[in-house]
């Protein structure tokens, strides 16, 4: 997904600065005051209630949408669920010809590529957030932050295009050739350097989730009360020690939330990965070898899936992906919300 997905969180943070319902609270005649019609008479009460009802039902549409997704996809994947059961998640046979479907290679590819992405993106993002919030002067920080967030605006398919024609040749002729030649005896660098494969996918994912993680971490850092930093400085801490003692430790749950949100984004990222991972449903320990992810198998095979069971199996893959990302998002949002709120209550 293109990530303006961090925007709503920011909204969540800012919202709590205004007491909830500040504007829907006590003002004169209003439906929220409830039972008895106010001085304005019956008709006004009704008009207000209708307005509230209409906007409320549009808001409620979101609930319906998410519930609908879960239901519709569960029903549509029932044939596959009935046929394969839990075996679907642990079998590595994906054979449309024999109508045998096991999603393990995709699960493996998704998790491994996302893990690689986190490995690269998390330290970088924390460095970026630390620099922008603690170390850089305000104006340059704003400009640099703006540029980093621009990374999130570039469409996935464009990263894919750039990856195919710029990054992959560079990887193949540079680091991968070297790794293959010199460290090829290690299982994780075994095999020829194709360019495309797990490493390329992890790298492009890292670039894509970096703005998400750094933007949310930055927000969490900025929510750390000034008094915390001053406490550390007054003890004679250097700039870095202040960051470590007052900021990083205070913001730990929020950072975890940011990382999980980044992971959620990496799991579902489709186009760039599809274009760079090599699309081979095999489980290999080598980072140089091609792989496959849940999102990319859907992208590649969905519109050509013949046969109901085939389609149903692909929808089940989507359902698993949906479940995973919803779980991660629920957990992460909770962590970020709670950190930002705590900061505001103390500030």
């Amino acid at each position, binding site marked *: 997904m293109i990530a303006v997905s961090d925007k709503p969180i920011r909204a969540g943070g800012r*919202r709590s600065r205004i007491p909830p319902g500040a504007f829907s609270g006590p003002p004169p005649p209003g439906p929220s005051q409830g039972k008895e019609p106010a001085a304005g008479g019956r008709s006004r009460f009704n008009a207000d209630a209708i307005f509230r009802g209409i906007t409320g039902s549009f808001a*409620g549409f979101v609930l319906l949408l998410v519930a609908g997704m879960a239901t519709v996809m569960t029903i549509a994947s029932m044939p596959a669920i009935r046929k394969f059961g839990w075996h679907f998640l642990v079998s590595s046979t994906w054979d449309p010809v024999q109508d045998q479907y096991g999603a393990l290679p995709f699960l493996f590819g998704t998790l491994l590529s996302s893990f690689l992405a986190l490995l690269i993106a998390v330290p*970088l993002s924390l460095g970026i957030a630390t620099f922008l919030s603690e170390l850089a002067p305000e104006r340059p920080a704003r400009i640099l932050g703006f540029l980093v967030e621009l990374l999130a605006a*570039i469409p996935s398919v464009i990263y894919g295009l*750039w990856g195919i024609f710029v990054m992959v040749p560079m990887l193949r002729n540079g680091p991968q050739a070297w790794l293959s030649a010199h460290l090829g005896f290690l299982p994780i660098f075994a095999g020829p350097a194709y360019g495309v494969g797990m490493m390329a996918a992890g790298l492009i994912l890292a670039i894509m989730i970096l703005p998400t993680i750094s933007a949310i971490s930055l927000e969490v850092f900025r929510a750390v009360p000034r008094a915390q930093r001053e406490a550390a400085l007054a003890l004679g801490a250097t700039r870095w020690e202040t960051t470590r003692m007052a900021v990083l430790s205070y913001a730990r749950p929020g950072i975890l939330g940011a990382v999980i949100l980044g992971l959620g984004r990496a799991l579902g990222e489709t186009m760039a990965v599809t274009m760079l991972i090599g699309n081979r449903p095999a489980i290999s320990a080598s980072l140089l070898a091609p792989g496959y992810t849940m999102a990319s198998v859907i992208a590649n095979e969905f519109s050509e899936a013949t046969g109901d069971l085939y389609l149903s199996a692909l929808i089940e893959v989507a359902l698993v*992906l949906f479940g995973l990302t919803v779980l991660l998002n629920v957990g992460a949002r909770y962590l970020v919300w709670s950190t930002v709120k705590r900061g505001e209550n103390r500030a």
Partner: protein
Amino acid sequence: MIASESQLQRRQWLSHAMTAGAFLCVLLALVPLVSVLVYIGGEGLRAINLDFFLHLPKPVGEVGGGMANAIVGSLELLALACLFGLPVGILGGVYLSEFGSSKFATAVRFTADVLSGVPSIVVGVFVFTLMVRPMHSFSALAGGVALGILMIPVVMRTTEELMRLVPGSLREAALALGVPRWRTILLVVLANARGGILTGVMLAIARVAGETAPLLFTALGNRFWSFSLKEPISSLPVQIFTYSIAPYDDWHRQAWAGALVLILMVLSLNIAGRLALRRRMEKAR
């Protein structure tokens, strides 16, 4: 007892080293940004020509042609997405800002945030199951709905946030004059937040304009012009995808040209939207 000078110097040195390291992280992050922009700009400018904007794709093997239908198709899909996503997003946002203290509103807010984290390809699968399968056809309508769903959380939360920036005193002034609450909201609050909501819409469009995954099996793609809502329709992102993984040099050339057009569209909307939004937030503070 008092620590030595050299230890203090070491601590200062570590602090400077960490600062340099953090700055290096920022530079490293900007490398791909610059590289992507330079390549898209360079290759795209070399590849783009008038034909690209005016012609249909040529059959496989023939050189030339353009993406005219994909550009128009993308605009059509975005219009459909707005038609579907904006009412839900904006009215839902109005509800959250004006009646947002209930448990129901909290649930909506949280669900909207979760929805914005659902992978776009999953939304594509959902719309396929819901619309394409029963209608037995890929269609522009399905593509528009898929993009519309992706717009909803963004529009909803920006609308809410921007309406909350409208000072409470303005609401109270209108209410005190005896204006009913619903008219106050529509005439005073919404009118005041209008500019901001528009920027929110721009950002939402920028967010979905480059989406490819949800269109792969909803709008599908089309090598020809198509104006019916019930037929598959071509789009810029899908066309870029198809061309860039194909083995023809001329298609690659066109993929770069398409990428240049797409990125200009997305980045200009995104940058303009973010600058406007930032100005608005700062003014309100």
